[in-house]
């Protein structure tokens, strides 16, 4: 097990696995551990079996691992994806009353913990989750008052419920201490760092807070997993931050209302998933021709169509890349962790405003539903600026500016009239059918691509790519790959993680040209990013590592996949 633990909690929807995760991660982080948590759940409100993985470590970790050191199944009916991950080293803390014979004959170590009975005694069977939280805190050396404090923070609004959870947690804590003290279970804990007190940020929060830091003051959405986590966060904090949030009638309204808000001087974001984004495409095209900025957050999930509503995938890159009819520049950002999600969401607003183009923040369910530790997230007023102008009497919305960016006026800010038009138009925004004007305007709009290319963010490179095998990844796959490479410990592999996938940074050409083999690891079935790399550099990936089962790669899976490739064989 080494100096690091992977704890997996399973339970039915409605059993409060989520709550345990929140409590535990916070308790552990406050105790000085490094933590990471990620979950997977079925598309249902009650029942089924969901799981959450919590990693407890002495160093920073931020990736899903296959390995389960400690499994806490709160109900029976474990799904195959969990069974597969159990090994003889796995310790199971389970309640025989609930699980019956489910684990009999399995080579793991099973310790019977009567979660249900303990919960009943503490006030109701519904708090088995808090019992589990108590047990785990005890095992990981969390001080009881710290757990108690967290319970108080969480349930302060409902005193009765607080009390039940408190006594459940306490009884669990005692049981955990008992296990330790009786030496039935001894974990060699990672060393805690008393100065380590990270902020814990899931993907939803990271995107939301980054957007807010970027000046986002208007959010539109039609609920759709996983994009609606951002809607929920923004609504729940709308009063706090003084912003406008509206759940609209459909995604078409979401994109059009956001465009209206931008045109009038707001900074709006629509948040959705692939299916909702597909409905927004006409609106994206409107953003392009009217040169009205927009930011759309797209949380990817497996398609086509409804696909798997609560699962993850990276298969909407090309959808975003070619979204909307006609031709126009755009930006696609693809954060890999909470820090990137924050930074890029902030940047999205600046770029949308500065270049008057649609900017897409392309995340996925895995990223959004994972909890990352961050030292901090920088917010300062200095880095913020508006990019619109006060309009004068000769104001022309579509002035043929040399760099393609016509100064953008805002209704009510100045004396000039602002004429925004969805047809091909002249400089003043009037409908224009002259072929020459058409050419000029189309060239003007496209010329912004050059500015975007110059501004593009370079990939993060680990290792020395020169003459090495180079693995490329984007979005949430990056951190998993990084840990996989660390696991492999090979010096002949370098990694480039792209947090911006379009336009690509110019360094990509050299990067790719100098590499021995190019391997692209991404979460889809056809290698979309590999295609983009080929298109941009001419270089075809030598190998693809693809995953389209609905769950993120594990560290182990990527490591063994790379090993297999480098042992020869297995060309794409």
């Amino acid at each position, binding site marked *: 097990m080494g100096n690091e633990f992977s704890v997996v909690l399973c339970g039915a929807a409605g059993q409060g696995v989520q709550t345990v995760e929140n409590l535990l991660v916070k308790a552990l982080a*406050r105790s000085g551990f490094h933590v990471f948590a990620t979950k997977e759940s079925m598309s249902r409100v009650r029942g089924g079996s969901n799981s959450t993985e919590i990693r407890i470590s002495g160093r920073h970790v931020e990736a899903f691992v296959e390995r389960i050191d400690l499994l806490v199944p709160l109900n029976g009916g474990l799904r195959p994806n969990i069974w597969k991950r159990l090994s003889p080293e796995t310790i199971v803390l389970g309640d025989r009353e609930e699980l019956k014979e489910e684990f009999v004959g399995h080579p793991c170590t099973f310790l019977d913990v009567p979660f249900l009975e303990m919960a009943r005694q503490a006030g109701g069977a519904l708090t088995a989750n808090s019992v589990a939280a108590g047990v785990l805190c005890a095992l990981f050396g969390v001080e009881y008052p710290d757990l108690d404090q967290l319970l108080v923070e969480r349930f302060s609004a409902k005193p009765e419920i607080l009390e039940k959870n408190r006594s459940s947690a306490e009884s669990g804590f005692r049981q955990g201490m008992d296990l330790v003290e009786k030496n039935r279970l001894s974990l060699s804990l990672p060393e805690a760092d008393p100065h380590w*007190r*990270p*902020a*814990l*940020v899931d993907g939803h929060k990271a995107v939301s*807070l980054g957007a*807010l*830091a970027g*000046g*986002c*003051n*208007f959010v*539109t959405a039609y609920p759709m997993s996983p994009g609606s986590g951002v809607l929920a966060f923004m609504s729940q904090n*709308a*009063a706090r*931050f*003084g912003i*406008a949030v*509206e759940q*609209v*009638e459909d995604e*078409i*309204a979401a994109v*059009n*209302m956001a*465009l*209206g*808000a*931008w*045109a*009038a*001087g*707001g900074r*709006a974001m629509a948040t959705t998933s692939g299916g909702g984004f597909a409905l927004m495409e006409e*609106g994206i095209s*409107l953003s392009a021709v*009217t040169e009205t900025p927009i930011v759309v957050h797209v949380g990817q999930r497996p398609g086509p169509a409804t696909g798997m509503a609560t699962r993850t995938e990276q298969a909407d890159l090309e959808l975003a890349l070619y979204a909307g009819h006609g031709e126009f520049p755009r930006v696609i950002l693809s954060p890999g962790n909470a820090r990137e999600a924050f930074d890029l969401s902030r940047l999205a607003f600046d770029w949308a405003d500065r270049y008057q183009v649609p900017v897409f923040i392309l995340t996925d369910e895995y990223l959004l539903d994972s909890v990352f530790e961050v030292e901090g*997230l920088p*917010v*300062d*007023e200095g880095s*913020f600026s*508006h990019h*619109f102008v006060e309009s004068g009497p000769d104001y022309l919305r579509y002035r043929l500016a040399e760099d393609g960016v016509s100064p953008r006026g*805002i*209704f*009510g*800010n100045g*004396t000039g*009239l*602002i*004429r*925004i*038009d*969805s*047809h091909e138009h002249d400089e003043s*925004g*009037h*409908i224009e059918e002259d072929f020459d004007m058409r050419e000029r305007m189309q060239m003007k709009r496209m010329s912004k691509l050059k500015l975007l290319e110059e501004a593009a963010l370079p990939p993060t490179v680990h290792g020395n790519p020169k003459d090495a095998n180079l693995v490329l990844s984007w979005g949430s796959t990056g951190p998993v790959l990084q840990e996989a490479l660390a696991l492999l410990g090979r010096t002949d592999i370098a990694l480039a993680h792209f947090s911006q996938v379009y336009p690509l940074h110019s360094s990509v050409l050299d990067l790719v040209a100098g590499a021995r083999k190019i391997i692209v690891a991404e979460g889809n079935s056809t290698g979309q990013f590999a295609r983009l790399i080929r298109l941009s550099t001419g270089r075809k990936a030598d190998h693809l590592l693809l995953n389209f089962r609905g769950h993120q790669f594990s560290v182990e899976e990527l490591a063994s996949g790379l090993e297999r490739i480098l042992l020869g064989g297995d060309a794409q």
Partner: protein
Amino acid sequence: MNPREYDVENVDMSWCPGCGNFQILSTLKEVLSGLGLSPQEVVLISGIGQAAKTPHFMKGHIIQGLHGRALPVATGVKAANPGMTVLAIGGDGDMYGEGGNHLLHAIRRNPDLANLVHNNMVYGLTKGQASPTSPVGMKTPVQVEGVFSEPLNPLALAISQGASFVARTFSAATDLSREIIKAAIIHKGYALVDIFQPCVSFNKVNTYKWFKENTFVLQDGQVDLHDRRKAMELAMTGPPYPLGILYQDRPGRVTFEEQLPAYREKKDPLWKRKPPVGLISAFIEGLR
């Protein structure tokens, strides 16, 4: 103010001679100037269609967006910049066909804007197909055996969903139109004005003559403005169809933008704001 201040020079007027849209355009200019609004205070938002070209033919800020989508754009504009006078303008295909869902939900949301629908009962710009309000039996190049579907009743729809202001006028009844459009703009909340408008090129059924013969103007006393049930009866009446304001909420109903947390502490339009960095930092600290 003089309505001429709303004129644009050298405009390439692409409407057909004799089209009812001209009457609506000049009425609208008169109303806006009559209200003492300068073009700088007005945002004219439209979709696509002949009616939706209106903003191009007058002064004012404009957004001509996508077919059917004027209402969400207009709602976004008003919510981001509540000081502006916002109009959403379009045709019957635009607002009741492609945009039907936005109409339904704009009514429920009640943003403070006036929604003018030039209802010519036909698709003008795309050359004469049936629109949602085309009468049953009307023949067109697509509905060659005559329209089959029941025409949409926009007024009944609006009243049934609690619209804050519902009226109908006729482009040629310019005095009435002036009065109604003015009231709609002044009205705080969502205001639907369905405007019967002859399309001389494609609608040979609902002509100037037809509209004249098949409408009557509601007289004072015939309507209890605040009675939704009576308004519904009127909305379901016709032919002849009543012209006038059928329903108006009593003052006091809160508008969409008024209830937004964005305007609870500050009243500034959003473009005057910067991110609340202190609050964001504090929130992040709370995540430790």
